[in-house]
């Protein structure tokens, strides 16, 4: 019974939060609601006894949205509303409703046809982390390593993009400093 109560509380909170993310015109409201929604989602993992995934949800998304805040801080005055250019409200609303219904339909299909079967059912007396580790390092080893390589590539390219011509920019500033010193 308590699980049902918890589930409904978390689902109402999550849906409400993501509603604010979409509807609000203020960047600060949207980002805070996004962070809140992501943290409330971890509640579902805890209800399902998948504690590891729940904690990872909190850790990963709180850090990721923190980076989003940093961008928000740089690009917007977050205390003011963002003026949005929306040509036609009708098209936007119909498209979003259609896509929402489609996602719900896709996710409900296996439920209707009753063909859900866990290919790797949860094992007794094995911890959460051990189960995730077993699956990751046996069945999904190659995708796991590929994802790691992709992240490495992204990291290196990020560093290269950021540091390109960094020394030249600094040199220009030094030139300007010298010019200022000479009183030009």
């Amino acid at each position: 019974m308590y699980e049902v109560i918890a589930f409904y509380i978390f689902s109402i909170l999550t849906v409400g939060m993501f509603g604010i993310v979409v509807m609000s015109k203020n960047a600060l409201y949207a980002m805070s609601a996004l962070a809140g929604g992501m943290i409330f989602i971890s509640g579902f993992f805890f209800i399902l006894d998948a504690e590891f995934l729940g904690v990872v949800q909190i850790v990963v998304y709180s850090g990721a949205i923190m980076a989003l805040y940093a961008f928000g801080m740089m690009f917007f005055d977050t205390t003011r509303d963002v003026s949005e250019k929306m040509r036609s409200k009708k098209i936007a609303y119909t498209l979003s409703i259609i896509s929402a219904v489609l996602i719900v339909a896709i996710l409900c299909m296996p439920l209707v046809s009753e063909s859900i079967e866990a290919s790797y059912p949860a094992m007794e007396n094995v911890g959460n982390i051990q189960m995730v580790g077993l699956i990751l390092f046996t069945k999904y080893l190659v995708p796991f390593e590929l994802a790691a390589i992709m992240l490495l590539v992204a990291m290196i390219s990020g560093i290269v993009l950021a540091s390109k011509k960094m020394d030249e920019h600094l040199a220009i500033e030094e030139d300007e400093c010298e010019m200022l010193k000479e009183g030009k």
Partner: protein
Amino acid sequence: MFETAVIVETVVKAVIVVSIVAAMAGFATFIERKVLAFMQRRLGPMHVGPYGLLQLAADGIKLFTKEDIIPQNAIKPIFMIAPVIAATSAFVAMAAVPYFPEFTLFGYTIHPIISDINVALLYVMGVASVGIYGPLLAGMSSANKWSLLGAARAVVQMLSFEVVSGLSILAPIMLIGSLSLIDINDYQSGGITQWLIWKQPLAFVLFAIAGFMETNRAPFDTVEFEAEVVAGYATEYSGMRWGLFFIGEYANMITISVLVSIIFMGGYAPLWFIPGAVMMLLKVSFWIFLFLWVRAAWPHVRPDQLMWVCWKVMMPLSVVNILITGFVLI
């Protein structure tokens, strides 16, 4: 019926933890003023009550009755909720921390931990790091430039120390093979020579430094450093909302002290003739004292120095530590 009993027990434990830690946080402010005063050859608060003890009550009354000012241009809901986030996340993190060894009261065995999940360590670290949203939201919603600078520093600090604290704690976890704080504690139950601090001295130092950054304590208090950004994120706050930030900060200090004691210093294992619970209290008190000692002894660092030390010194060191631990284990 069993479910209801568990819920009631959990609620009672939660209320006890929150009330005791909140009271300890209040008391810690008094201790901080006294310790700092003695280290600077002053007396500290002396006038209110015996030895200045009632200063605590006076400060509390002042905080509770002060006017709660919300600036005109601030974003009101977020400005109001930010201190609540800082305080609650500090308390929620305590849900998975075992404080004492289990004991029997009226024939009923009590485990002094609210919820024994098997990823406790990760949970505590994750939720405690959510607490940095408090300063961030406060700074961004205050419509004040000092506050915004404080918020920017909070982001930078969080992104830097998270990496170090996560990587440094990985090596002890590899040794133990479990994320449960109770397992980590039991691993070191064989006396003082079994403490992980001897096996993982580097991880210990790195984790302690990251803990100072996480709690915004003195050498790394860039978020609210008076000489640079007025009061940082808390510039516009007054009254109880300001107080909530500080209850959160002290609660975080207590959590970090408990964590370091459990992971590296043998936790609540009894030592010689000292029972486990007293050992735990001694260790936590020592760490709180260390927080204050460092504040009195060391100057404050600039944000760029903090990032430099995080990314260029501490992160490589912790990666090397993991590598060496891995080789030793294999």
